[in-house]
């Protein structure tokens, strides 16, 4: 399975009101790899995530997931096939206890199917998942109102929500943003474990240093176009990438 192409994007393009947010992006992703997607602000990273996961329909191009054409499928169908995404902006259900936030994916027909036609004890599964991402077992954080949790916990909860679907492909939109170095470090073993279980991961990140420790390959976007694709070190030595990053930093 490890040499199979799990995801293939062909010439994806999408524009909003005349601005090309994503402009002809193609790539292939083999199973059990970590692909990083980086780029300056406004380079189309989140739009690319939205395209891949069905939240935005492409104007042009095609997405093949496990050889199946998923272009234009609604997000819930994409997720049901095993492609789970997290959101950059965490908007949990503030009034609910933390673990209850995982009930929604656990209620899906995908989870029931994978569990052999029955749901099981959703609350228990939810608590186990939160523990896996670093919530302290038997502590208040699991049952506390989600609205009163610190940002780091909410980000981890976002990852646990994806894990609840037991997906084959994770699309994580800036999972590390706003996290402390220690918090990022605590998530690395979780990601390693997912990889050991055979998962494939796409990470959209601003935190390059942390990303490069995990990613096998990196795609660089600038103005919606793919300007580089390769191993982390070789990509960062690419002159075009350097100028894109330096250029954007002086503009910011």
């Amino acid at each position, binding site marked *: 399975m490890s040499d199979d192409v799990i995801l293939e994007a062909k010439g994806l393009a999408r524009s*909003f*009101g005349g601005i090309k947010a994503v402009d002809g992006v193609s790539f292939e992703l083999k199973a059990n790899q970590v692909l990083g997607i980086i780029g300056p602000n406004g380079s189309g990273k989140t739009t690319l995530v939205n395209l891949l996961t069905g*939240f935005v329909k492409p104007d042009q191009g095609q997405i093949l997931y496990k050889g199946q054409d998923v272009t234009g499928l609604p*997000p819930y169908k994409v997720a049901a096939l095993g492609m789970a995404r997290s959101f950059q902006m965490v908007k949990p259900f503030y009034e609910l206890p933390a673990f209850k936030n995982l009930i929604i994916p656990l209620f899906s027909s995908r989870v029931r199917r994978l569990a052999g036609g029955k749901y099981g004890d959703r609350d228990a599964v939810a608590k186990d998942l939160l523990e896996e991402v670093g919530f302290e077992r038997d502590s208040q954080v699991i049952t506390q109102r989600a609205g009163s949790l610190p940002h780091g916990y909410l980000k981890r909860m976002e990852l646990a929500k994806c894990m609840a679907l037991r997906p084959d492909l994770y699309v994580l939109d800036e999972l590390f943003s706003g996290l402390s170095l220690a918090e990022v470090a605590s998530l690395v073993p979780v990601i390693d474990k997912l990889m050991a279980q055979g998962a494939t991961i796409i990470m959209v990140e601003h935190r390059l240093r942390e990303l490069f420790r995990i990613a096998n390959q990196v795609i660089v976007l600038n103005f919606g176009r793919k300007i580089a694709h390769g191993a982390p070190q070789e990509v960062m030595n690419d002159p075009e990438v350097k100028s894109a990053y330096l250029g954007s930093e002086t503009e910011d």
Partner: protein
Amino acid sequence: MITMTIVYGFINSAILVVAALGFNITFGISGVANFAHGALYIAAGFLTYLCLTELHFPYWIAAPAAVIITGALAAVIYRVVLLRVRGLVVSEVIATFAIGLAILELFRFLGFVGFEFTLPVFVDASVPLGNTLVDAQRLLVVASGIVLTVFLWLFTHYTKTGLAFRGIAQDERTALTLGINADRVAALSMAFGGAYAAVAALVILPLGTIAVNEGYDVMINSLAVCIMGGLGSTGGLIAASFLIGYGQIITATYLGTHWTMIVSLVAILIILIVKPSGLFGHQKELEERT
């Protein structure tokens, strides 16, 4: 028959444009869907009527007074009510809807029902167009439609307030950083919409009587043309008015007048099912659909 349909369809379309402009201005600038628009229209009609018959004002005082009072009323609605629920779109709709209901039902309760409630026409004459006679007031509606639209365009392109309106409409956050007071502009946009509703009442109501139920119909028609044209788009509003305007006249001629409002209602439904952003809408699609 055909000329009549063409002429009256054109006039009916102009009526729809004039009646809906106010609603469209407010939504286009501040994003407030003012469901009290129909009520403001009728209120302006009764205000003018009262100024003329009870206070015996001359028309040239009564008419501007009604326009100013209606505009002020709309601004007050914004300051007192809408400001507190700003951003909660559903609460805005429920609040304006309820205010409209209160205004209209208050007039009904106070006994403003009957054929005596009319406004004077500007010129009492008829003009032959082909083989149909058209009264001058109807032609005036068409003329005022053109004047109001041109005035709106000049206002939003050449005055400071108008430019602020457009700034807010295009990008509220950037406009804020440039020192435009969003709440003041929104209140002004409500006032502007209210004043336009009043002008529409002055021009259109002389064609019939001032009836409370008309307020609901004006609201539905305005919604229909604005949704179809794409909320906030003046060009779309005009195009949609002609589609619905002719649709109404054709169904009225060949099926009966019962069908007139059904045309608007069905138009709203179809456009919301097929293309919720309207025929000429901007990028609203992203926000409203997923």
